[in-house]
């Protein structure tokens, strides 16, 4: 045992040394492949880009805004709004007495004082009767008036925040609690359900009431001074936004209250002093437990939990999302270089001599990949440091980078020319960027967002804690998928495939077939007519089961993507499409390797062999599918769509044990039956395979409908 471990250690050390050697030379080659002019141009481009960003940052820091002094506004130095206008960079105050509308001023602030109240020459707030902003009847005049209005609002907000007496500044405290979309099939018009309409979530209700209070306070403040657009409309809009926040996108109580409360702020405010829990219900974050929706309005969102409703931003992690996207940008450049390097080995058989060295293909590929993986790690770490991400961001991006490289490797192994490689890399880039970015948009809305590791980055940037289960759920499929992609590509990293001009589909089948062992009728090795537990026979069928099991991460990713894509559609449309799509994905995953086996002559074309490999494949898929129980850990199956995609007998606790056992094994029967049917077609040829695959898909979809109905 010790000797064996020692030998293994030595072998690994040798392999590691070889990988490092190839990596070293690959780095030298890659750097040698870029001529000095290109390098200089790249550096210059980076410097220019960096300079632009630097100048932008510097001007921002120094207050050198590009929109400085755009509008001239006439205002008395003694006016209470003079300070607000002076603080706004885009406004340039000019003395009101010399200001002439349309000539020396775009807008004029006219302060109407009560008669006899300014005997001392200074205009105190109590002296003000009203303030009127007059602007030229031009677009610029309208814009100037709007800017004045915004400047005053911002000024008031600042004054309130600076007020030591918080109660006086914000007499109504609003606590917002966002509820995750975890409702079922019958509770909403969209796949995630709609909180506002049916559940009438108490948390949402309380928030909206509170918003009204906030609106009242805010509206009152604004309404005091300006008459340009009316305090009512301001209050309305504020109330709307607050309502929208609280209702989580619904058109529930909040909006309605906000609208009605706009005109009579004090009343509404008085009536809105509700405790979030006063409704008697539990809030989403308290009650659901599984998926912790972050508190909205954290620092990363640019708003505090305290403030007027206008300062509360909706649950869209815009800034974090943009910053998270920065991680994906370098990947696109990296895969171009990596894909070119791999294809370069294949062009004109340049890599043939490497195959004659004592190195294994895996060592060559690892060595060639290592510099790019290292570059990805370095760049990711640097970006994380710059944008304020932590180790979680790096851990989350690592599988994304690995998948970018893995998919590019496979693409470069399958592509026949650099032209094809271009399509491959663009395809990889678009697909993976979509997969990583789009779900992350819903970071604060639904657990579906955790499909993408980028969501973890967003959480990290927001300072939110995530559970190990969430990290596993987000990263494992891509990490395993990347590993399998490399495995798939390695299958054709051999002379016979590397330098041939086979179509992509044939190479794909080759890559699958090379992982299979021969299965034939009769006794002997790999024969299905011999002893039941013949070792060779089990090994051959085991390779079938294992290969099918390896497709699980891709199936998982494809199904998650389908869920994410169909998430926003009405249930009536998305559910049927999803059920069929998922059935198709799984049936293809289970049978395509069998088709490859028959096409490449690994399997003997007989019904007996077809059934044997069909059963093996279905069983392998069933076992691997059970490993996806991780979805339960993050509460995805509580989503109706998640249940349709991933749950089988979840939520059937009321049934007797025998029924539960039967239902537990029902998917096994399904997979074995459907795959055997497809296998029988695959052994007869392409057309028969297409036909049986369709039948298997329909049967599988019908089963899915049954599961959804039971659930």
């Amino acid at each position, binding site marked *: 045992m010790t000797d064996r471990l020692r030998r293994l250690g030595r072998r690994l050390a040798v392999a590691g040394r*070889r990988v490092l*050697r*190839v990596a070293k*030379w690959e780095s*030298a*080659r890659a750097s*040698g*492949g870029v001529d000095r002019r290109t390098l200089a141009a790249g550096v210059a481009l980076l410097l220019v880009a960096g300079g632009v960003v630097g100048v932008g940052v510097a001007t921002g820091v120094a207050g050198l805004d590009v929109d400085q002094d755009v509008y001239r506004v006439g205002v008395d130095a003694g006016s209470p709004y003079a300070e607000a206008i002076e603080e706004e960079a885009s406004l340039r105050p000019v003395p009101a007495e010399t200001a002439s509308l349309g000539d020396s001023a775009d807008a004029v602030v006219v302060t109407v004082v009560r008669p006899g109240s300014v005997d001392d020459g200074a205009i105190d707030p109590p002296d003000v009767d009203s303030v009127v902003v007059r602007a030229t009847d031009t677009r610029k005049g309208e814009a100037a008036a709007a800017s004045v209005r915004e400047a005053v609002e911002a000024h008031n907000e600042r004054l309130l925040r600076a007020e030591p007496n918080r109660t006086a500044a914000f007499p109504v405290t609003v606590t917002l609690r966002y509820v995750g979309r975890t409702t079922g099939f019958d509770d909403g018009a969209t796949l995630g359900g709609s909180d506002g309409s049916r559940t009438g979530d108490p948390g949402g209700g309380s928030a909206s009431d509170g918003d009204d209070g906030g609106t009242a306070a805010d509206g009152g403040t604004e309404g005091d001074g300006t008459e340009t657009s009316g305090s009512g409309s301001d209050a309305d809009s504020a109330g709307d936004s607050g309502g929208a926040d609280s209702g989580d996108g619904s058109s529930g109580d909040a909006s309605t209250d906000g609208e009605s409360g706009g005109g009579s702020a004090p009343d509404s405010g008085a009536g809105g002093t509700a405790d979030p829990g006063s409704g008697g219900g539990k809030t989403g974050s308290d009650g659901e437990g599984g998926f912790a929706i972050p508190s909205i309005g954290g620092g990363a969102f640019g708003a505090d939990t305290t403030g007027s409703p206008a300062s509360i931003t909706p649950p869209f992690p815009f800034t974090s999302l943009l910053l998270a996207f920065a991680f994906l940008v370098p990947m696109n450049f990296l895969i171009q270089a990596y894909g070119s390097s791999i294809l370069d080995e294949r*062009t*004109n*058989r*340049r890599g*043939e*001599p*490497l*195959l*004659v*060295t*004592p*190195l*294994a293909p895996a060592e060559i590929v690892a060595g060639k990949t290592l510099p790019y993986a290292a570059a990805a790690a370095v760049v990711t770490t640097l970006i994380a440091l710059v944008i304020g991400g932590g180790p979680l961001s790096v851990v989350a991006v690592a599988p994304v980078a690995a998948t970018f490289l893995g998919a590019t490797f496979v693409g470069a192994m399958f592509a026949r020319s650099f032209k094809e490689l271009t399509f491959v890399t663009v395809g990889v880039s678009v697909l993976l960027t979509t997969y990583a970015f789009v779900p992350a948009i819903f970071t604060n809305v639904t657990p579906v967002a955790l499909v993408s590791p980028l969501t973890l980055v967003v959480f990290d940037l927001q300072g939110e804690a995530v559970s190990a289960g969430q990290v596993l759920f987000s990263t494992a499929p891509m990490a395993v998928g990347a590993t399998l992609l490399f495995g798939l590509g390695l299958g054709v990293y*051999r*002379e*016979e495939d590397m330098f041939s001009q086979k179509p992509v589909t044939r190479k794909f089948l080759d890559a699958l077939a090379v992982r299979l062992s021969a299965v034939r009728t009769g006794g002997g090795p790999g024969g299905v007519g011999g002893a039941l537990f013949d070792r060779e026979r089990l090994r051959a069928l085991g390779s079938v089961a294992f290969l099918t099991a390896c497709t699980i991460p891709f199936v998982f990713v494809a199904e998650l993507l389908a869920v994410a894509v169909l998430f926003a559609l009405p249930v009536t449309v998305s559910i049927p499409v999803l059920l069929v799509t998922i059935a198709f994905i799984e049936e293809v995953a289970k049978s395509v390797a069998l088709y490859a086996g028959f096409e490449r002559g690994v399997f003997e074309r007989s019904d007996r062999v077809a059934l044997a490999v069909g059963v093996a494949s279905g069983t392998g898929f069933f076992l691997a599918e059970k490993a996806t129980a991780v979805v339960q850990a993050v509460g995805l199956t509580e989503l109706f769509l998640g249940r349709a995609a991933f749950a089988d007998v979840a939520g059937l606790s009321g049934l007797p044990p025998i029924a539960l056992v039967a239902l537990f094994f029902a998917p096994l029967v399904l997979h074995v039956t459907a795959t055997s049917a497809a296998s029988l077609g695959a052994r007869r040829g392409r057309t028969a395979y297409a036909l049986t695959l369709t039948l298997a898909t329909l049967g599988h979809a019908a089963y899915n409908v049954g599961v959804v109905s039971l659930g």
Partner: protein
Amino acid sequence: MIEVSGLRKTYGDFAAVVDSDFSVDDGEGFGIVGPNGAGKTTTLKVIAGLVEPTDGEVTVAGFDASDPEMRRHLGFLPEDSPLYEEMTARSYLRFFADLYDVPREVADERIEAALDRLELDHRERRLGDVSKGMKRKVAIARSLVNDPDVLVYDEPASGLDPVTTNSVLAFTRELRETGKTVVFSAHNLYHVESVCDRVVVMNEGRIVARGSVDGIRERHGETTYRVFTDVEPTATPPLDDLDATPEEVGDRYRTAVPSMDAVAAVREAAADAGGEVVDIRSREPSLEDVFLDIVGRPMPGRYTGDGLDDGEVDGQEPDGPENDRSTDGAERETAATATEATE
């Protein structure tokens, strides 16, 4: 050193090599000749462990051909010499020496020795900027960085100019003389003859002839002599028996005969006509001749040039470069004076 037994390699329905058996002794030069698509390259790739045989066994230096350890004993030169063009010759060779775990000092010594012998200049120039012949030499040097026991060379002189061809063949001969086993493929017998003791002739995946080059020539081809006279030789019984009909070529007459005895007969006939022999040329059987004799039809892709004057055949050589013409037995004509012919 090399044992090939029952080798079969198929690609789908296409059989690239069928039932191939041969063995190569330690230190022997062994040639595989045949037209394009004969299965030469596939055979060599199976020996090099690049291609997995569909059936049969191949061992090299006591290792199965698929054993990675075998590759430490092997130097392989593929038909083409695509190199990493952004690297220099020296760095490229060091890279491969590194992969074979050759210590740096030893590697440098071997590399410099090989490059010196191959007269390769511009060792620090990027390989993308050097000539085809230079690249070939670098590729040959690469096959030697691990000091292998077995050299498997696929068309080592293919596509090179005559000078480089001779240089490469001479170097290969030297390698053999140092005790290395050399297996190499070629399109023409001359290349093989200069390096190898034994050859196999392949056609459509099968070995159709085997033996020494001379033996194959003797069995499957004939040396012919063309005798040029200044007058038309008189028809004499010996010439009539040989069915040797003089042809008028310019201001001379040419008579093709199969032996030196027949040359003497032509000489006598010319003297009878009042003239003399002015030139004699011998023509050895080419691979095409051998192939035609064995298979009963011309080599695929080759034009035998029926109706053309001897020495002008082989108008089409899809992969037989122009220098072949100067060295292949089909075109190699040895000028001999009348005196030499009579000796």
